């Protein structure tokens, strides 16, 4: 039994890797995708469509005084209004569709259901910190100007004028040593591309928000000083943007775990590369089905039925061979991704071992799916049919687009989602964790994905055994 399966597996593997068709799916498709997406990393995100994010404001109002006026402000709320009003350039389309969430748990569960791309969490001290920051930026914007004006007046012998500037500078100096860190948190799933888009946008708009706030604060303060001391302050706050970026942070918090600091580009490839690997494995289903079609058409199957090979041996051999083909494909793709600089390696081989398990399973899954389809569809266009099915499926599950994914059940504390019906999704997620985000995830984090991938693969395999045996191997027409 085992020997027969192995012999069939080896010969099918040999056949597969000698067929040119497969190379289209290994090298052609995915590499072109990778190169195009890779060189236009942001093109994928340029769609003009609101991105749905959650908003969890934990900020406390704070107050500050300018002269005799006291201002009360909750920047968390203000930032919410700012984000809400944002439009894509030259369009009427909002950048964000914002959903209020009331707790971190709610945020995590909505992220899990893909209802929101990610959730912004504004921490308690945000207003206070931002105020300190604005004061500090104001100090750096104005101090130099006041000082040089005073110096200028003094050198011209205009001591009264110089004094005014010095007094103003003295008042401004209370902002000199403010310490602050402007931070917001983003709660999301880094294996999901929309979360990365949200991450990128949060950075961008937090920066622009702080810049706009500091401009108006500086203006306000400059106005106050010039009135009080009867001086004129001319300044440009264009220089602000450069120094400001080092002072704050968007911390990404992965759901169910800790924070991470990864570059956007790295995160981008973390989404892209495993998606491409599994997509190419899925596309090998086209080769599976044409191979089966040829065997049926050329009566090879009829011939095999006369031998001692049993249905389980034959199907087992076919399925396993495509597991090995998947490994072969993935190795080529991964090496290409490494060569392109999309992937950095880690030293821990557990990650690679689990990756191999995931890839082989995805190959078996693809072959099972294809055998099932081959049991019903038998025509020259069967490979076109399966190509359409698999491309559609792969786009749905690769996580490039937000698609509702309600939880449909739970087993051993592992939640099953609707999209798990296409279990390749779990393979992609697992590979994102295992190959790309090794600094964030441990191998243990992959177990739920593996569990679901295995369960569904077993179900698909059983279905393919039954249908292929009944419809093809055991049937007398």
């Amino acid at each position, binding site marked *: 039994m085992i020997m027969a399966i192995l*012999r069939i597996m080896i010969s099918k593997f040999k056949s*597969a890797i000698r067929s040119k068709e497969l190379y289209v799916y290994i090298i052609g498709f995915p590499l072109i995708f990778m190169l195009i997406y890779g060189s236009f990393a942001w093109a994928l995100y340029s769609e003009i469509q609101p991105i749905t994010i959650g908003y969890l404001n934990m900020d406390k109002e704070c107050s500050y005084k300018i002269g005799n006026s006291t201002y009360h402000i909750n920047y968390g709320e203000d930032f919410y209004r700012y984000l809400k009003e944002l439009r894509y350039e030259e369009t009427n389309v909002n950048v964000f569709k914002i959903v209020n969430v009331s707790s971190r748990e709610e945020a995590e569960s909505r992220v899990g259901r893909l209802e929101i791309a990610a959730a912004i969490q504004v921490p308690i001290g945000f207003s206070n910190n931002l105020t300190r920051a604005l004061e500090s930026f104001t100090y750096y914007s104005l101090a130099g100007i006041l000082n040089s004006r005073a110096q200028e007046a003094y050198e011209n012998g205009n001591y009264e004028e110089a004094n005014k500037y010095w007094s103003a500078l003295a008042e401004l100096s209370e902002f000199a040593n403010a310490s602050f860190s402007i931070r917001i948190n983003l709660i999301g799933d880094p294996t999901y591309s929309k979360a990365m888009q949200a991450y990128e946008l949060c950075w961008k708009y937090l920066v622009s928000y702080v810049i706009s706030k500091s401009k108006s604060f500086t203006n306000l303060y400059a106005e106050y000083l010039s009135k009080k001391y009867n001086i004129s302050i001319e300044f440009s706050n264009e220089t602000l943007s450069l120094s400001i970026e080092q002072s704050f942070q968007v911390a990404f918090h992965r759901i169910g775990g800790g924070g991470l600091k990864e570059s956007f580009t790295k995160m981008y490839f973390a989404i892209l590369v495993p998606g491409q690997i599994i997509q190419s494995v899925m596309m090998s289903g086209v080769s599976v089905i044409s191979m089966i079609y040829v065997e049926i058409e050329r009566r090879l199957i009829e011939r095999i*039925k006369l*031998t*001692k090979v049993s249905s389980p041996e034959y199907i087992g051999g076919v399925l396993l061979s495509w597991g090995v083909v998947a490994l072969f494909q993935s190795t080529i793709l991964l090496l290409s991704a490494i060569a392109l600089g999309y992937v950095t390696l880690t030293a821990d081989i557990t990650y690679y071992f689990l990756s191999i398990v995931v890839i082989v399973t995805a190959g078996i899954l693809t072959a099972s799916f294809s055998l099932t389809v081959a049991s019903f569809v038998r025509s020259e266009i069967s490979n076109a049919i399966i190509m359409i099915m698999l491309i559609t499926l792969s786009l749905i599950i690769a996580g490039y687009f937000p698609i509702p994914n309600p939880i449909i059940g739970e087993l051993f504390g592992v939640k099953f989602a609707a999209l798990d019906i296409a279990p390749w999704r779990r393979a992609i997620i697992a590979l994102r964790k295992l190959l790309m985000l090794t600094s964030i995830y441990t191998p243990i984090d992959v177990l739920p994905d593996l569990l679901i991938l295995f369960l569904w693969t077993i179900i698909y395999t059983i279905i393919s055994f039954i249908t292929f045996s009944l419809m093809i191997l055991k049937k*007398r027409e």
Partner: protein
Amino acid sequence: MEVAISVRNVSKVYSNNIRALSKVSFDVYKSEIFTLLGPNGAGKTTLIRIIIGQLEPSEGEVYVLGVSGRDFLKSDVRLKVSYVPQENIIWRNLTVEENLYLIGSMYKIPRRVLKEKVKELLIDFELFEVRKRLAHKLSGGMERKLSIAMALINDPEILILDEPTAGLDPRARASMIASIEKLKKLGKTILLTTHIVEEAERLSDRVAIINYGKIIDIDAPSNLKTKTCGIEVLELLFKELNNEILSKVTSTIHEKNIARAGDKIVIKENNFNEVIENIRSNEYLSSKILALSVRKSNLEDAFLFLTGRFLRGE
């Protein structure tokens, strides 16, 4: 004589209502070469697929070594039968040798025995030189040989060959015929189909003439010929044979002794000289005739007289 394959009253109507076989009955005896001779679409392949249990007959039953078609694929008898379909059954992306090893391992032949067997077949079928070549790079003749070599890996008692020489050039065909003769010497029972009369005549112990799904006659080739058209026939080939010519030539001959096929008239059991004289003395006929020969009858003639059809799609 022991019966190897028995076909009892078999009819087959496909799901698209095409009637491929009507009440076909015959026996194939052990160690004989039995040929189904019939034109394209006669139902040969259909019949073979019913025999090896792939198709269910609409009516009737087949028995192979005593096992009914219904149970054939479940019974060990299937291991004693090999089948080479019309299309070559080879794995195109495996080498010649790998193909033989794969099919051998499907029969679970122990590796050591298999190695010997593969070598023997490679030599027998003149494939040893090309054993490392991918199957899809073989010539048509070699592909065919490989298919048949693969069918012999399990030493079958019964070998079913569907159009073994189809698509082969004359040299490859001659070599294929020699191979089949060799197999006969080994005492194999061979059921083959063809629409080539020379082959059927040369190879077969018995021939079944099949036309439109019906068996017209079954006999040894020599019997078939003499029985239906005597020892000799007169064959006339005209330029643009028309009804006028036909009636002028055949006016004195009994209708059942005349067969027309295209521009050709075949006449049997007659005073051929009389006919020839008649043509020679008629200026019009002389001007139209292209060829004229009295020759030994063959299966083609038998088929023509039995069915009124050509075997080959001329």
